[in-house]
């Protein structure tokens, strides 16, 4: 059986029509004055899912999360959590906890009291609090720092305290607002995997907000790509990358070439586009627009082949161009190939071998070719 990309676990409740979502946003709108931050948004999140909200800064991700936590009230629409409409429930009674973008650690309390704060609020007996706090400290590997104040910790350590504090009450849902935003790149990558392990281990539902597509791709079971308060696509990382539904998503995630064309034949799961860039595209994946519609065709740089000779099979999509630029990145090489009409295509080739015989150089005439399932026809 073929599947898109490598999936990390066989967990896909969203494909099961009988599964009930754990969290549902139904036609949720949030306006600030005359500015619409979240626009008639509908979204399902499942139990034990690691769900990412991805989008540029200011697109309404935090607002969505804050509505779930109870700090903002939806202007209209409803939010269901575990079968219950949570509209009237104040933040301090919701079974969700949030890890704040700024961490929001209490500066006058030690690491220990920060982590135990929620437990004390719940009136848990002292001995049990001590036990749980010790457990959380161990989980985030901060045992030696229990008595320190937040200002005596590094950024990475603070991030862990914030995480431990938000997990201490064992919430049904953990909300994470740009949890790794303040960490440097190396620490961020390490922590991504730690968060994933933690989520699996504790069996919790995580909703994470990020503007970093790599972070979302690495961690999430599914990603909601957002723009201007709307969800553009909700899908697994592989689907988002290999089958973006729109120009926006294709462009937002990774590198992409978008070829323009007009549909000349469609049906049977196939589309033929008269490309504006001097080629005819035969595609067997993506949307299937009606005849005569102008649309785009998205193809990732690594799906393009670059050869000196035209492909032998006339059924393969191919176009001739000239090597305009070559970028050597170590693990791969990126070719910029200029077509007759001036459009430049990006093609990348993995450097699987150390030595290359007769490499392609600047200004050479080359053929760029791709299979009919290598790219997708876009909605618009």
């Amino acid at each position, binding site marked *: 059986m073929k599947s898109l990309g490598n999936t990390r676990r066989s967990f896909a409740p969203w494909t099961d029509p009988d599964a009930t979502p754990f969290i549902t946003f139904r036609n949720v709108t949030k306006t600030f004055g005359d500015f619409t931050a979240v626009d008639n948004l509908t979204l399902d999140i499942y139990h034990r899912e690691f769900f990412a909200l991805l989008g540029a800064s200011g697109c309404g991700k935090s607002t969505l999360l804050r509505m779930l936590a109870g700090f903002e009230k939806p202007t209209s629409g409803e939010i269901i959590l575990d079968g219950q409409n949570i509209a009237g429930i104040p933040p301090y009674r919701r079974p969700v906890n*949030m890890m704040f973008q700024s961490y*929001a650690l209490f500066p006058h309390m030690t690491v220990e009291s920060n982590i135990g704060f929620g437990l004390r609020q719940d009136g848990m007996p002292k001995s049990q609090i001590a036990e749980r706090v010790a457990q959380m400290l161990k989980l985030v590997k901060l045992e030696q720092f229990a008595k320190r104040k937040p200002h005596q910790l590094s950024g990475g350590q603070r991030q862990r305290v914030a995480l431990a504090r*938000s997990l201490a*009450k064992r919430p049904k849902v953990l909300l994470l607002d740009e949890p790794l935003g303040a960490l440097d790149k190396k620490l961020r990558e390490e922590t991504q995997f730690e968060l994933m392990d933690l989520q699996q281990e504790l069996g919790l539902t995580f909703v994470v907000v990020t503007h970093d597509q790599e972070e979302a791709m690495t961690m999430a079971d599914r990603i909601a790509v957002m723009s201007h308060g709307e969800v553009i696509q909700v899908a697994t990382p592989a689907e988002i990358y290999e089958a973006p539904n729109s120009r926006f998503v294709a462009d937002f995630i990774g590198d992409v070439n978008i070829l323009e064309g007009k549909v000349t034949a469609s049906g049977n799961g196939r589309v033929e586009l008269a490309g504006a860039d001097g080629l005819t595209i035969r595609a067997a994946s993506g949307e299937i627009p009606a005849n005569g519609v102008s649309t785009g065709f998205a193809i990732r740089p690594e799906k393009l082949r670059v050869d000196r000779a035209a492909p032998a099979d006339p059924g393969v999509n191919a176009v001739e161009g000239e090597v305009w630029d070559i970028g050597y990145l170590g693990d791969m090489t990126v070719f910029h190939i200029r077509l007759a009409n001036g459009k430049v295509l990006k093609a990348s080739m993995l450097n699987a071998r150390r030595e290359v015989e007769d490499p392609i150089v600047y200004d050479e005439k080359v053929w760029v070719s791709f299979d009919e399932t290598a790219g997708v026809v876009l909605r618009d």
Partner: protein
Amino acid sequence: MRNLGSALFSRLVIIVPYVWLLFFFLVPFFIVFRISLSTMAIAQPPYVPVFGFADGLSGFIGKLGELHFDNFLWLTEDALYINAYLSSLWIAGVSTILALLIGYPVAYGMAKAPRALRPTLLMLVILPFWTSFLIRVYAWIAILKPEGLLNQFLMGIGVINDPLIIINTNWALYIGIVYSYLPFMVLPIYSTLEKLDHSLIEAAQDLGAPPVSAFWKITFPLSVPGVVAGCMLVFIPAVGEFVIPDLLGGSQTLMIGKTLWNEFNANRDWPVSAAVATILLLILVVPIVFFQNAQAKAEEKGR
């Protein structure tokens, strides 16, 4: 050369506050202290200096042995002084607590007001400073006196039949002190509350703390530096306050500032009034040191 110059400059900059302190605090204090050790005389100025520059260094050391602290002993002998000190501390303490009880909610309200409104509110707090302090205290006489505005109003709406006697009682004194020093309480508290990161309150609520609990566990502890500063700024000048007890307080109102004034002007006993001032200063140094300590600690925390 340039390095030397800039090093010299930075050293000068450090010296400036010390020089200031020397000339405007230590030297005057020493002068007052010197008067407090002398004896009264019918002369101009009305005391016999214990030592002067004319004595030279050897004369100065010789006279050190002869120093007598009669004026200070006198303060302990007459219950008037001790009572005045205690009463001043009590009145200042009560006024500080009242100012805190009124000032904290005001500061809190200001910090929670819409951002655009805050400069206006701040302006309103500072506005009274634009008129003379004395005029404002006199205005209170007009408000509080038996036939004053307050009594006219209360009798007008029928709450009372006979005018309340407020003026020349401790009530008027407290009203006057709290009114006059309230901005000094509000401003430092407002400034700590305004800086407070709102996400801390949200975090507390997120972890299960209802708003009242979040206030006492997060907002209030984090505003303590402002509360301490405000209390010091009210308490310290209130202890030595002289104008308000004189104008609004009654004849039975005992405050050290008023006593000092009487000793100095009515009795023309400079040595005793200098001793009174010296002790007052020492009493106030204690809370000031406490305040400095608290501030240093807060700074440590804020790092």
